[in-house]
């Protein structure tokens, strides 16, 4: 029974998620879902978005690798945005059952090296767990933590930190 409720919640999230997946990286840019809107017109709104984060291209293969999920500082909890991205990845993985994936957990440079290794592992595991809950076989998913060792952006500022606190997905 409990599982049923959970599945329903997941389904609900899936619907919201699918919508968000399309526009998640730009959702604060514009209220229009049309991603082709001239970017110059939304300079002011753009300032709210981390310019270092990649955006969805619509190409499923490219997006699967390029779209990371992001975490709050010292947190391994999946945000609504992160869950939406994971929904998209689950869909992709369901479409091709041969694909095996390695989930990487990463942290920003702040805090202790060793603690960040552990935090990165928790991030990778929570992303992996979410995919398993969505029906992806555990045997297709492995994980590794890189702690703060492999930043996506080698800068030392809030935008870079935000971009570096991430879960990354690679096809094996």
């Amino acid at each position, binding site marked *: 029974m409990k599982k049923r409720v959970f599945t329903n919640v997941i389904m609900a999230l899936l619907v919201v998620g699918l919508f968000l997946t399309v526009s998640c990286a730009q959702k604060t840019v514009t209220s229009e879902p049309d991603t082709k809107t001239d970017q110059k017109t939304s300079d002011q709104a753009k300032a709210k978005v981390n310019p270092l984060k990649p955006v969805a291209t619509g190409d499923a293969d490219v997006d699967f690798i390029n779209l990371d999920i992001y975490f709050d500082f010292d947190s391994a909890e999946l945000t609504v945005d992160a869950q939406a991205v994971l929904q998209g990845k689950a869909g992709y993985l369901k479409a091709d059952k041969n694909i095996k994936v390695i989930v990487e957990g990463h942290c920003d*440079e702040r805090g202790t*090296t060793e603690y960040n290794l552990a935090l990165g592992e928790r991030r990778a595991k929570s992303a992996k767990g979410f995919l398993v809950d969505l029906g992806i076989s555990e045997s297709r998913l492995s994980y*590794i933590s890189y702690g703060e060792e492999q930043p996506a952006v080698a800068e030392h500022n809030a935008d870079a930190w935000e971009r570096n606190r991430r879960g990354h997905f690679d096809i094996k």
Partner: protein
Amino acid sequence: MIYKKLIKAFSFFVITLFVVVHGNSIVYCQDVTILNINNASIRKIPLAVPEFKQFLKGANIEQDAKEAQKFLMDAFNFTGYLKIIDERAYLAKPSETGIAKNDIDFLDWTGIGAELLITGGISVDNNKVKLWLRLFDTFDMRLLVGKIYTGESDDLREIIHRFCGEVSKKLTGKRGVFGSKIAFVSRVNGKKEIFKCEFDGFKPEQITFHKSISLSPAWSSDSKWIAYTSYAKGKPDIYIKNLKEKRGAIINKEGMNIAPAWVPGQFALVASLSFSGDPEIYLLTGTGKIIKRLTDSWGIDISPKFSPDGKNLVFVSRRRGSPQIFIKNLETNQIRRLTFEGGYNTSPAWSPNGDRIAYVGIRDGRIDIYTIGIGGESPVQLTSAAGDNEDPSWSPDGSLIVFSSTRQRGMAKLFVMTAAGEEQRKLLKLNGEQTDPDWSMVND
């Protein structure tokens, strides 16, 4: 100096009492410690180190004499508890008038405020160097340490540091930092490798060549082994490496194998292994076999370090929702929380004297080094307003702390400060970023 004499008299009384009470002839400590380096507000003792007297002339004697004097000055400047008086103020020239006690007019030295004097003599013969070194208490007009050393010219620095160890032992009761080494992580061509250097940053030397990410070096108590974490085989495993012989072991269980630290005086270590699902701390043999699991909680348990007596373990745990420092008594198995201020306290290091823990705390987005008493008393912030400061490690005598800081152009470099946070200075000049310093506990 009257004060000093009083202390000496009192100490003598105590020692005598000790001997009398115990009714045997084993004297606990006959040498009187002149200086307590653990005192936070230490007054630096002024020391004079005049030019060396050159005996038997050899080819490079002038240069060697100058170098020996400079090694002495640099070594004592590094300690943080001695102050070298400027050579230009010296009234006498023992290099001409003699370096033995009878040759010295101590008024020349007390007159310029020098409380201690080191005289040196040197002879060089076919690259063999001989050194006569003496430490005097100028007010007591007393020889405190007198040593003669012989060796190769190339070993001049090492010989001087051996003498410095003797001086340190006389003054503080401990051999100090001399002869100890610091292991650290340095970036080489975008990869991270383990390096070591001498206590003062001299002679940095790469000791791993994995061309991968290598982290968290830890010296064994006897300094013969280094344990570290490396991604050399694709995921974080622990490597246990003998520095002299080609021997070692790898701990490569499923999941992460990280954060090694040695058990004091034993060929055994603790580390965080996550094969059970989340990082827990285990006691392991020096060859990597699990002896015992030491923590059991759903959260992250990481960065274990032993108390110097091996009876307690300090570590970081997220069991209360944020990373905080905890201490486990290994005899009673009781665990207590040490840090309560702030939502992020990590990277603990137990002082060699056993009384304090250095750690990293984040407050208002600033990452700094703190120390706290092992009972949770008197927390002190040692760094502030100078970049991010991480990875504290104590010198073997507990007088200094080495750490990494991004205070210069945002790039992580190694720095040293006194245990009270004074005299913060860069340890070494080396290309790339340096982090994760670990100070060896042996002086050899």
